[in-house]
């Protein structure tokens, strides 16, 4: 079903400026500036940033829900922003998303099965009844759900964890290569959160590429192969997770790591250098094997 390939989702110098006020006359907000990184099937990239860092906007731009102001997002060599009708539909057949609030991701008026029905009409019209049920059962199994427990129910009758798993299985049904998981566990309780993360880990082992958007460094570290740290819409540090967390170089990363509450060690003094200071013309410099820092 999933096989790692040379396919790459590449973001190059992606920038997003929001205008407030009518006819764009009002103030402008630089949500994302000059973001460049890749996601390949078979790896998990965690995009870490505090609220307002632009991490969700990056996720929405990849999913073509918000148009970038500048820069390009290409998938398998083709620029995503130019895709229309058929092309966009094919893109969504290979790149899908799961959102933060499970209870807002389901139309309260319909049963949860509808999320499956919607994609069946668009992506698997020729699949016969029995084969469809079989594929759906297998997709549910991949996320540890029993069809009988979840199908035919309304969103409020299921737990947040079950709802998020359903959305993942919906994406699996479409044989996708890249999944954008935008803060998918922040609304879940700790005990069910870890199981959802383990599922993402298993899928990565079977060749799925995942962009794991989160504000929680511990979860980002637990799950991802590479990490991208955003501050005010700019990448401040990027590289293999083990390396970056072992010796963080950028002051902002170091400050974040010192503030995360641990269960084993007490908080030490917050690092003194001011994480807010932005260098004059910031550029990402290589400081180690595939380890970049904004200088």
């Amino acid at each position, binding site marked *: 079903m999933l096989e790692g390939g040379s396919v790459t989702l590449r973001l190059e110098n992606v920038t997003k400026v929001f205008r*407030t006020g*009518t006819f764009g006359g009002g103030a402008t907000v630089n949500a994302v500036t000059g973001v460049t990184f890749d996601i390949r099937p078979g790896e998990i990239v965690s995009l870490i940033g505090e609220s307002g860092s632009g991490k969700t906007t990056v996720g929405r731009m990849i999913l073509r829900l918000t148009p970038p102001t500048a820069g390009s997002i290409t998938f398998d060599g083709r620029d995503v922003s130019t895709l229309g009708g058929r092309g966009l539909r094919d893109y969504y057949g290979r790149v899908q998303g799961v959102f933060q609030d499970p209870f807002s991701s389901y139309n309260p008026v319909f049963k949860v099965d509808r999320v499956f029905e919607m994609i069946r009409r668009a992506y698997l019209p020729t699949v016969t009844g029995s084969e469809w049920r079989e594929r759906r059962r297998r997709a549910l199994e991949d996320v540890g759900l029993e069809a009988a427990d979840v199908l035919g129910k309304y969103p409020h009758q299921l737990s947040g964890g079950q709802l998020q798993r359903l959305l993942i299985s919906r994406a699996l049904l479409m044989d996708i290569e890249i999944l954008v998981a935008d803060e998918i566990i922040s609304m879940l309780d700790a005990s069910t959160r870890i199981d959802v993360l383990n599922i993402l880990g298993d899928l990565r082992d079977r060749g799925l590429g995942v962009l794991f958007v989160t504000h929680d460094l511990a979860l980002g570290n637990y799950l991802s192969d590479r990490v991208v740290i955003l501050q005010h819409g700019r990448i401040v540090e990027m590289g293999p997770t083990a390396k970056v967390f072992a010796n963080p170089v950028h002051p902002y990363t170091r400050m974040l790591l010192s503030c995360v509450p641990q269960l084993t060690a007490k908080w030490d003094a917050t690092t003194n250098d001011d994480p807010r200071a932005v260098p004059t013309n910031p550029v990402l410099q290589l400081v180690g094997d595939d380890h970049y820092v904004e200088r």
Partner: protein
Amino acid sequence: MTRYLARKILLYLLTFWFAVTIDWMIPRLMPGDPIDGLIGRIQADSTASQNLHGYFTESFELDQPLWQQYLNFWQGLIRGDLGPSITYVGSTVGELMWAAIPYTLALLVPAIVLSYVAGNRVGAMAARRKVLDNTALPVAYVLTAMPYMWLAIMLVYVVSFRWELFPVSGAYDFSLQPAWTWEFARSFLSHWFLPFLTLFLVAFGGWAIGMRNLIIYELEADYANYLQSLGAPNKLVRKYAYGNAVLPQMSGLALALGAVVGGALVTEIVFGYPGIGTLILAALQNRDYFLLQGLFLLIITGVLIANFIVDILYVIVDPRTRTGIQGT
């Protein structure tokens, strides 16, 4: 803050331009030759209609290209020359309107202000005491549902005819002339009261209902819960709830102006009150198109100015617009 007002001014200028354009276009939108249509309705005999036709064509300048007509229309407007009146031959539309405005304002301004204040107070109290909620509010529903002209008719019939408490119509005794004398003032007030009461009661109903619901929502707001958790007395919580609820009511006031003005027109007609309403009726009955179009512009301008005044009040009352920062 200035950006907030600048945007509002832009909106009102656009609205004014839009209204003026409608006003200019309507007679020209008429199917067929507008002049024939107009004259046909006046049912004048053939010779009169002949020179009337010339008169209209020339005054509407229909013989000139459209854009020229449009420019002339604006020039006339700026010069304040809205053309002659057919109904009251000899006086211009401007003079007639100038005479009628004070009477309508004398009705409208007190009615709007007092009904707004009273309505909000009663609505706030109704949100608090159940007994009021079950008595005052149903009355408010009935009042706000009542057509202005019908309430006017009932007041005239019951209060003026049957109880003979107030004069039936007009703004002052025929024997008097408008002057700053006590006698005229007393007569004016007694004629003024019933039309004012009509506008006041219907508008009052609307405010009471609106405020009652807004207060209930505000009493559920986070700041209200927080104050109550800190043991603040209900009086303070209600004061804050009222302060916050008044804001949407104020923007509601801007919206309701058009409705109350409409109400004033028909109320004046029932009471024969010499304001803009009576002028409109006369213009309608005599097909006095210049007067009608002039009155239309007057109403639009009046409502726009009133809306702008309410916006300024809103900025004064709501600090958020004053600071100009829409949230961090």
